């Protein structure tokens, strides 16, 4: 069952060929058997999942169930789940059981989708290797000596190991696309504002966006409509019409203009990654698309601008974790300052503390203009590059990451080396554009991701292009060994 497409699983659920309980039990059993080697889940909600599956089965039996009813998926532990511990990968929230659901969790719940559990992640989504989680690193199912990428490493590994047909995830600088790339699966981060951020624990509010991971573009498109409801509870959620993504997956690519940014093929790109991405571009060309060389001249500023803006926003977003109303509180505080400083020092890991300090610095008196204002100006220039590019082309394609999955510990000593993992993905977040990663080959035997960047609200076009590519190729069907 775990090698079937979601379309096929849904057809069988609705035809009652399989029950949601059977399907859910199948995945729960796989998680219990296989996940000890990957550590992709931090919480398994078995009892709740079975109850939800039974409820879904009775709805399915009545014959008027939602299209997604009965399908089990996993949620990244950044999304608040009522009554289920939501840790965000941090000791700070190890004891946090929210009395409310994130909007996207609620949407899936209302559709009858079953929650298998909560997936591991870098602490507060800060990391590109899943090594900053309080619950230990997630291992890449393709090679357990390698990282799965981050921050949505748990969701990516779970989907790659077929422990869930799909998983929710979030992307602030590449946290969906980079792990999707490193784990050989498909992931989409829609346009900023397309999906409600309500109940998604904030890292950097102007960059954070929820999204999805699955094994194919078709699977993503089936789940995306339920994710993208307009939500008045998020003031930055945009009330734009939502197309039916699954209905536009068979458009021919003839006439499609694909931009290929020269900046994405420079030094630092793994040669086999480059070869796989170029082969994918050739494939698109052979399917009728036109390749256009474009330039995004401010690309090199993405990483520095991001590492000012994201820490600045996070330094404020994480101030609410103060040991007063929820979360970790130190024992026997001497006074108020001690309560704050010790609760936060004990509750946050090193990378989180580092980013809070950098962010505080960038916003502090005397440095604000030199760092924060400058970074926001760079952000504008980066966005304008894309706006100009999308006057010429329909989509932009390139590598998702500079190389395939890397060994644990190889980049932890040098934060800057780690930050460069997101060199191709960050600009999309700064501009607020939608991005995808889909598998397009192997490098050193490990998956390579092709990044697809679309114009604002062009998710349908991106999914169609990815679907056409996946119809013509089989990279997305490659799975790690030893997951049977």
């Amino acid at each position, binding site marked *: 069952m775990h090698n079937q497409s979601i379309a096929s699983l849904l057809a069988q659920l609705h035809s009652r060929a399989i029950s949601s309980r059977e399907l859910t039990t199948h995945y729960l059993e796989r998680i219990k058997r296989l996940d000890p080697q990957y550590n992709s889940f931090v919480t398994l909600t078995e009892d709740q999942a079975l109850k939800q599956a039974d409820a879904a089965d009775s709805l399915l039996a009545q014959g008027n169930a939602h299209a997604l009813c009965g399908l089990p998926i996993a949620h990244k532990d950044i999304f608040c789940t009522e009554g289920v511990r939501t840790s965000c990968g941090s000791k700070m929230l190890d004891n946090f059981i929210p009395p409310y659901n994130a909007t996207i969790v609620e949407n899936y719940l209302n559709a009858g989708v079953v929650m298998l559990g909560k997936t591991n992640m870098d602490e507060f989504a800060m990391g590109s290797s899943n090594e900053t989680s309080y619950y230990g690193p997630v291992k890449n199912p393709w090679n357990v000596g390698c990282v799965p990428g981050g921050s949505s490493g748990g969701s990516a590994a779970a989907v790659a190991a077929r422990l869930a047909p799909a998983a929710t995830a979030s992307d602030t600088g590449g946290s969906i696309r980079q792990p999707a790339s490193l784990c050989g699966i498909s992931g989409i981060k829609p346009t900023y504002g397309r999906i409600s951020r309500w109940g998604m624990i904030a890292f950097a509010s102007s960059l954070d966006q929820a999204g999805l991971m699955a094994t194919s573009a078709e699977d993503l498109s089936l789940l995306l409509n339920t994710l993208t409801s307009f939500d008045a509870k998020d003031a930055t959620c945009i009330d734009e019409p939502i197309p039916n993504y699954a209905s536009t997956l068979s458009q021919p690519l003839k006439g499609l203009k694909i931009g290929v940014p020269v900046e994405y093929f420079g030094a630092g790109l793994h040669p086999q990654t480059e070869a796989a991405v170029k082969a994918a571009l050739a494939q698109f060309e052979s399917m009728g698309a036109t390749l256009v060389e474009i330039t995004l001249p401010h690309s090199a500023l993405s990483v520095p601008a991001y590492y000012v803006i994201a820490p600045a926003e996070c330094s404020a977003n994480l101030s609410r974790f103060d040991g007063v109303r929820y979360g970790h509180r130190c024992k026997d505080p001497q006074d108020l300052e001690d309560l704050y400083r010790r609760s936060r020092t004990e509750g946050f890991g090193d990378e989180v503390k580092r980013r809070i300090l950098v962010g*505080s610095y960038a916003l502090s008196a005397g440095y604000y203009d030199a760092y924060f204002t400058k970074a*926001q100006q760079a952000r504008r220039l980066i966005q304008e590059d894309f706006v100009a590019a999308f006057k010429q082309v329909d989509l932009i394609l390139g590598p998702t990451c500079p190389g395939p999955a890397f060994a644990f510990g190889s980049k932890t000593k040098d934060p800057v080396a780690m930050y460069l993992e997101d060199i191709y993905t960050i600009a999309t977040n700064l501009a607020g554009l939608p991005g995808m990663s889909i598998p397009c080959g192997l490098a050193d035997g490990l998956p390579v991701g092709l990044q697809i960047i679309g114009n604002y609200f062009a998710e349908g076009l991106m999914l169609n292009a990815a679907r056409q590519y996946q119809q013509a190729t089989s990279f997305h069907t490659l799975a790690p060994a030893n997951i049977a």
Partner: protein
Amino acid sequence: MDADQIEKLAKLARLNIAPDQVAEVADRISNVLRMVDQLQALDTTGVAPMSHPLDAVSRLRADVVTEPNVREAFMAIAPACEDGLYLVPKVID
């Protein structure tokens, strides 16, 4: 980035940095700052800072009470409370 600056930032952010970690933290943060210093070379004359990816304006909510009393549910997950109040070490003005 020296030890004094780190302590000042740590105080602002309400974090403790153990004395034996200050050098390492300073070093790592300096690395990050060196990297972001690339921005300084950029000519940004006349470029409006961008706070938000979308050029949209805010919706405004109607002034209608929608939130019920949730004290019990939220106090149940609080580390210290009494008589409907959250407790903290004595606040001195």
